[in-house]
C-alpha cells in the first residue's frame, strides 16, 4: 500500500493494542467543570509567571500567566470565571508532589475574548506564523511537551528535507490522535501543508499506525497535493521520534543529536492541528483530546479543557470508585501513576488509563541475564549490564553503556522474567548523574572563583613587593603611619559598602 519503502529499527514488541475499545467511538465534549487547576509548569521548560491576581475576573482566551523566557510557555484561561487561588496543588507527578497552580473558578458562561483570525493562512509570512504559534502557548501534545514555537523556529533556521507528522500512537489503548484525524482530517492536512510551507520542507509525510484504518481513510478522503500518507507497522515503540525517523528515512539520528540535525522535523499530529488553529483563528491551546480507557465499561475520548481535574473527567466516563484500580496518565508502557485524582489534565496528557490493580507476583527480582531485554531494546542497549551499573551506582560504567541514549520506552521491563523495574533503575541513575553533574558545575565555579581570588592576591603582593612593601616587613614601618593607613583603608571600605547598599 505504501509507496515508500520502509526501514525498521531493531528490537521493539508487538503489543496487544486495545485500540478497538475506543477508536470508533465519537469523542465527546465535557461540560465545563466548576474549578480548573492550571499548573504554571506544564512542559520541560521554565514555569510561567502569573499575570493575574486572586479575585480577578478573566475571560476565556485571556492570558493568565506569561512565559519567562524563550523556552517558557504562556497560559490562557480555558473558560471565563474568577481566579480563586494561586497556590500549590497536587499534580501528576511520579511521587505525588504539588506545584504552583492557578485555580480558576468558572462561571459557566464561557464568555470569550475575541480572537484575531486571518482570512488566508497561505499568504501569511513566516515570521507572522511563528508569532501566532508562540502566542498560543502550544507545546508538543504527544507527551514530551517541547515548546512548539521553539521547534518551528529551529526548523525555520535549518534546511529541512522532510517534515514528519507523527500520528503513530504506538502505546496501547491511546486513540486520541486517531479520533482527531477521523474527526478533523482537513485541519490535519491543512496544518501539515502550512508548516511544510513555513519551514520550507522538502517533503511532508503524515505517518499513522497500521491499526488506524479509519484515520487513514479519512485522510485519503481529503484532497491534498504534496502530502504523503504512510502506514507504519504496529511495533512498539515505532512512534518514538527517532524510531519513526529511522522507519521513514532509513537513517539514524546520531546519539546526542535531534532529528532536526539530520534535516528531519517531527511534529505530533495534535500539535499540528493546534498550530493550525492558532495560526488560522488565533485560538490559544485551551483544550485537547484525551483518551479515557482501561478496565471499565464505557471508555472513549473526550475534548477536555486544560486544568480539568482527573476525577471530574473519570466521573463523566462512569468511573467513580478506583480503589481497586491504578489510574495512569499516559499509556501503559510509559505512563505515570496518578497518586491524587484531584490533579488536573495538562497540555501533555493524552490518556487517562484505568487498570486493575494486579497483585505483584512474588519473585526474587534476580537478574538471570537471560538477554530478553537486549533483544527487545529499540536502542540496542544492554539493559542487563546497565542494570548492574545502575544498581551499584557505577555512574561511569552506566554512561559508557550509553545510559543517556535510553528512551524510557519500557520494553526491557515488559519482558523481564524477574520483573525487575529496569526503567525505574535507569531513571534513577539518570537523575542522580544529572544531579552529580550539577553539583560538579557548582563546585567547578567555586574553584574557579577561588583560583581567581588567589591570582588577584598574588598580583597585589607583587605590586607591594615592587613598591618595597613586603607583607613580612610590616614591623619595619612607623607605627603611627601604619595606623593612619589602616584607618584610611577601613573608611574606604565602609564607604564602598555603603555605596553598594544604596545601589
Amino acid at each position, binding site marked *: 500500500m505504501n509507496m515508500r519503502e520502509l526501514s525498521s529499527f531493531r528490537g521493539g514488541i508487538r503489543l496487544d493494542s486495545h485500540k478497538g475499545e475506543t477508536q470508533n467511538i465519537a469523542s465527546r465534549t465535557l461540560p465545563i467543570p466548576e474549578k480548573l487547576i492550571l499548573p504554571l509548569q506544564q512542559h520541560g521548560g521554565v514555569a510561567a509567571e502569573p499575570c493575574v491576581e486572586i479575585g480577578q475576573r478573566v475571560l476565556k482566551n485571556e492570558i493568565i500567566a506569561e512565559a519567562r523566557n524563550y523556552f517558557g510557555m504562556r497560559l490562557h484561561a480555558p473558560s471565563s470565571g474568577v481566579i480563586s487561588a494561586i497556590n500549590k496543588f497536587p499534580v501528576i507527578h511520579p511521587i505525588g508532589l504539588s506545584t504552583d497552580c492557578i485555580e480558576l473558578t468558572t462561571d459557566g458562561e464561557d464568555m470569550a475574548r475575541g480572537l484575531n483570525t486571518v482570512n488566508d493562512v497561505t499568504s501569511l509570512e513566516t515570521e507572522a506564523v511563528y508569532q501566532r504559534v508562540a502566542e498560543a502557548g502550544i507545546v508538543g501534545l504527544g507527551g514530551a511537551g517541547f515548546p512548539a514555537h521553539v521547534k518551528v523556529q529551529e526548523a525555520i533556521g535549518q534546511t529541512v528535507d522532510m517534515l514528519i507528522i507523527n500520528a503513530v500512537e504506538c502505546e496501547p489503548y491511546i486513540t486520541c490522535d486517531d479520533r482527531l484525524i477521523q474527526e478533523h482530517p482537513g485541519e490535519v492536512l491543512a496544518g501539515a501543508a502550512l508548516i511544510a510551507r513555513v519551514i520550507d520542507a522538502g517533503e511532508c509525510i503524515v505517518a499513522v499506525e497500521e491499526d488506524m484504518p479509519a484515520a487513514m481513510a479519512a485522510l485519503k478522503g481529503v484532497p491534498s497535493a504534496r502530502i504523503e500518507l504512510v502506514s507504519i507497522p504496529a511495533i512498539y515503540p515505532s512512534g518514538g521520534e527517532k524510531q519513526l525517523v529511522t522507519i521513514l528515512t532509513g537513517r*539514524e539520528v546520531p546519539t546526542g543529536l535531534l532529528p532536526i540535525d539530520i534535516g528531519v522535523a517531527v511534529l505530533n499530529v495534535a500539535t499540528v492541528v493546534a498550530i493550525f488553529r492558532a495560526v488560522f483563528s488565533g485560538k490559544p491551546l485551551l483544550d485537547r483530546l484525551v483518551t479515557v480507557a482501561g478496565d471499565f465499561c464505557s471508555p472513549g475520548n473526550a475534548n477536555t479543557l486544560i486544568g480539568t481535574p482527573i476525577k471530574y473527567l473519570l466521573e463523566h466516563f462512569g468511573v467513580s470508585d478506583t480503589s481497586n484500580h491504578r489510574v495512569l496518565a499516559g499509556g501503559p508502557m510509559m505512563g505515570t501513576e496518578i497518586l491524587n485524582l484531584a490533579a488536573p489534565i495538562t497540555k501533555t496528557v493524552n490518556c487517562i488509563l484505568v487498570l486493575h490493580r494486579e497483585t505483584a507476583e512474588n*519473585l526474587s527480582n534476580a537478574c538471570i541475564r537471560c538477554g530478553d531485554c537486549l533483544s527487545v531494546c529499540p536502542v540496542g542497549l544492554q539493559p542487563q*549490564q546497565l542494570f548492574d551499573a545502575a544498581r551499584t551506582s557505577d555512574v561511569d560504567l552506566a554512561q559508557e553503556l550509553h545510559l543517556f541514549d535510553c528512551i524510557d520506552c519500557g520494553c526491557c521491563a515488559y519482558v523481564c522474567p524477574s520483573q525487575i523495574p529496569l526503567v525505574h533503575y535507569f531513571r534513577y541513575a539518570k537523575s542522580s548523574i544529572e544531579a552529580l553533574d550539577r553539583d560538579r558545575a557548582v563546585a567547578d565555579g567555586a574553584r574557579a572563583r577561588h583560583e581567581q581570588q588567589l591570582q588577584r592576591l598574588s598580583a597585589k603582593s607583587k605590586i607591594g613587593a615592587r613598591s618595597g612593601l613586603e607583607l613580612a616587613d610590616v614591623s619595619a614601618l612607623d607605627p603611627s603611619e601604619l595606623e593612619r593607613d589602616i584607618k584610611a583603608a577601613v573608611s574606604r571600605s565602609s564607604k564602598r559598602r555603603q555605596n553598594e547598599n544604596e545601589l
Partner: protein
Amino acid sequence: MNDLTHPVSSPHIHDARPVPWIMRQVLYALIPAITVYVYLFGCGILVQLMIAITTALVLESLALLLRGYTLKAYLSDGSVVVLACLLALAIPPYAPWWVIVVGVAFAVLIGKHAFGGLGYNIFNPAMVGYLFLMLCYPAALSKWPEMSKIVDYPGLLESVRLIAAHSVGMPDGVSGATVLSHIKTQMVLMHTHSEIESTINFGTFAGYGWEWVNIAYLCGGGWLLWRRVVKWRLPLSFMVGVGCAALLGHVIDAELHRGAVFHLFAGGTMLAAFFVVTDPVSSSTTPVGMLLFGLGAGLLTYCIREFGGYPDGVAFAVVIMNALAPLIDRFTQPRFYGKTSNTKHI
C-alpha cells in the same frame, strides 16, 4: 497511599515468562535424557536425583535464611532444582550417596551463594560442584556401569541399596570406564583408534549407549530452542567449536583423533551444549559474545579431551569461559542506535 518501597515506575503492563516457568521448561527438557539413563543403567539416576534435589533444597533454604532472604520468593524460582538435576546427571548413577551430597553442597554453598546467589554466580554452579568432585574424588566419578555387561537392571530398591552401600561404584565386573576415559587410558598406552575400537563396544557412532544419552539431550535441547528458552547462538557455536576442532584433528591424523560425529555425541557434549553453556547467568549475553563463548567452550572441550589429562573437558572448558565472559561481553558491545563513528568505544 502508595507503597513507595515497590516502585510504581512504568511500564505498568508485563508479558514475561517468569523465571520459575523458564526453570520448569529446563526440567521438562531433561526428561528424555533421564528416561534413557533409566533404560541404560537402571533406576540409579532416580535415586541420585532424589538425593540431589533434597540436598539442594535444604542447603538453599539454609543459605537463604543465613543471608536474610525470604524463602518463598527465592526457593520458588526453581534454579537450585535445575542445578541439582544437572549435577546428578553428570555423576555415575551408582556412586555412593555422599558423592552427590558433597557435590551439591559445594555447588550451592560455594558455587552459588558465596558469589551472591542466583544471577551473581560467575561460574556455572553445577560445573563447579562437578569439578570439586572430580578433583577430590576422581575414583568415585570414574566408575560408570558398563552398559553392555549389565544383565539385570537394578530396580529402585536395589539402586537405593547400592547407593547407600557406601562403596565406590557397582560390583566389579559390571563397573568400568566410559568410552571417553577408556580411549584416554588406551591412548596413553600408545594405541591407535583402530586398535582401541576392538577393545570396547563402540556402538553405532559414539560409544554404545552414550550416543543415545546425547541424542536424548539433543531432543530436550531442540525443545528448549523451540520454546525459545535457550537461544540458538550458544548451543550452535559450542557444537561448531567441538565439531570443527574434531574435524580438523581427524583430517590431520585419523588414527590419533576421532571424527566430529564421535565428539559431538560422546561424553557430555550435548548436555553441555543445551544445559550448561546456555546457563544465562554465567555465560556471555551480547550476540557476538555468545558466539565467542560457545566457540571457545567447544574448542577447549575438544583440546582437553584430546590433549589434556582428563577424559572429558566440558566442565573445565565451561568454567574457563565463565571466567572470560565479562571480558567478552565488554569487548563485544553491539552497535546501538545513533552510534556515530567517532564515538569512543568502551
